[in-house]
């Protein structure tokens, strides 16, 4: 092979960026002693904030999956007038600043808002309540699920669905037995991105639902009140929770792939 400078130069450039991203995280985590983390975990405030973050993100992801997967399928399979407008709407949350999203949501979801007031009548409160946390997270992380589902379904040949139909499966059965399983890999990775994005949501959450505090809100509050040393243990705990989640998912994915890989070698 001909030697060129391209590979070393590109590698060096990329390494700078990777170091820039990883060094701060590693240094922050290693500065924290296990004892200080343990102490932080003893605080009810910290435990509750971590729980609200994790469970709120999970709820937002579940809703995004339930409503976003069908939308992703339609976008992958059907042509209709205004499709590019719909795709634009799907991507909009990515470009809207998060505090702006919070203000917009507050306008609609406040007890006087067009959605907030009927919801209030039904006994659901968004402002400074868990549903508000979930709503803020959902608004900003749903695109990950919709777009992942769309590209997942696009990768499934419509002819496979046709064959399924000719084998006697109806449209719904074909979706459940063929399209969804084949797109599930893409959808799961979209869901992971969605969850991670939701856990890190801050700007929209503090506008709509300062309470119950999510981890990010608590970290910010500790930082403004107690400075770096006060906020860092909570920050490290949040990072560790996220890492744990990713490791578990990776293991789950490997377990899922494992038996099939073995089967192909049989």
């Amino acid at each position, binding site marked *: 092979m001909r030697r060129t400078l391209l590979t070393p130069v590109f590698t060096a450039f990329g390494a700078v960026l990777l170091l820039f991203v990883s060094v701060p995280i590693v240094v922050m985590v290693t500065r924290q002693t296990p004892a200080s983390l343990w102490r932080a975990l003893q605080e009810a405030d910290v435990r509750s904030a971590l729980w609200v973050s994790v469970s709120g993100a999970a709820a937002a992801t579940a809703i995004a999956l339930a409503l976003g997967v069908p939308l992703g399928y339609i976008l992958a399979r059907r042509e209709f007038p205004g499709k590019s407008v719909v795709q634009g709407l799907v991507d909009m949350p990515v470009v809207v600043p998060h505090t702006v999203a919070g203000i917009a949501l507050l306008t609609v979801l406040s007890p006087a808002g067009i959605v907030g007031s009927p919801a209030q009548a039904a006994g659901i409160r968004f402002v400074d309540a868990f549903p508000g946390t979930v709503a803020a997270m959902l608004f900003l992380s749903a695109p990950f699920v919709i777009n992942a589902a769309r590209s997942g379904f696009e990768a499934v040949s419509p002819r496979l669905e046709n064959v399924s139909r000719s084998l006697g499966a109806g449209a719904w059965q074909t979706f459940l037995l063929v399209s969804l399983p*084949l797109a599930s890999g893409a959808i799961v990775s979209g869901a992971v991105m969605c969850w991670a994005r939701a856990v890190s949501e801050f700007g929209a959450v503090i506008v709509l639902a300062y309470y119950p505090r999510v981890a990010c809100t608590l970290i910010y509050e500790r930082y403004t009140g107690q400075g770096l040393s006060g906020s860092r243990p909570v920050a490290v705990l949040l990072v560790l929770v996220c890492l744990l989640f990713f490791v578990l998912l990776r293991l789950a994915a490997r377990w899922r792939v494992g038996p099939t890989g073995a089967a192909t070698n049989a």
Partner: protein
Amino acid sequence: MLELRDVSKQWQGFSLSRIALHVADGEFFVLLGPSGAGKSLLLELIAGFHKPDSGEILIRGRAVSHLPPERRQVGLVCQDSMLFPHRTAFENIAFSLRLRGQKGGVLREGVARLAGMLRIEHVLGRRPDALSGGEKQRVAIARALAVEPQLLLMDEPFGALDPVTQRSLRAELKRLHQETGLTVLHVTHDQAEARELGSRIGIMQHGRLAQVGEAAEVFERPRDAFVAEFTDCRNIYSGTAERDGDVTVFRSGALTLYSTAQVSGPARAAVRPENIIISAEPVKTSARNQFAGRVTGVERQGSVYAVRALFGGREMTSLVTAHSVQELGIRPGALVYFSFKANSLHLMSAEGMAGSPADAGGGRGAVLGDEEAGRD
């Protein structure tokens, strides 16, 4: 069994216009045509993936155009097998059986029976990506048969396979058809495959059926130059036919041919290369057509040789074995005799063709016309 009544459809640049076809119960019908002729689109209409723009499709006398694919009981096998990649061969075959509520021993028995018919018992545990091309098609056929189809649609099922696998699968399919008495509609662009499998053949061109008939009829009596050419009849000439008693004399430039066909006026003549006998000496024969000429080319084509020679300014091709090439000392420049019977020369009236819708293929390069005679 299957009846198409003036079915028309425009779809993504493909079009079918007024296709009328009748496939009898238990028949093996082959649709033969070049890529883009609309063969696959026609199968997809019958399977129910599209609705015809006009016309009606009937299966066992029942109009099905409004029925979704899952209610047509039509089996489909595609060129790229389209097996479900996330399921084993067993589960692919079991797909429709499970939908019909079979499970446990009944299901295993059903799959085993189909796997036995297609001789794929040993691959049932594998996923499609661990199957060879031939195995994939066998699984796909077994899966299609599992729906107990009224009609089996085959869309170039052997097109992506190597010649050896193709040959064994064709034989297998023929056996399967004889054993089950299934009605098959088989699409291909391979004339050899069509001839081997089809009891009747339909030639498709530009979204129309150019000719439908018994295999022998389509191959020996093509209706026009396109059909003749597409069925690999390489000797097609333009000229004039004149009746003379019980024979017809056909003249194209300096070439004079005799035919038993009864045509007069401007016509095209076609003789299949495999119907021409080559000899090194003039032979005493009942064949009315015999002429001497010089060999212009010898080409190996698979297991046979195509020998081209010039007679009366017209080139003619015959197919012979390697043995004959050696025996007769056939090489460019050698003197040879071509002979064929008068009933091997098929005549197509040029007037009739001009009026026929399938004439778009007329006047093609392969047809040597009078206009070219002057240059010879």
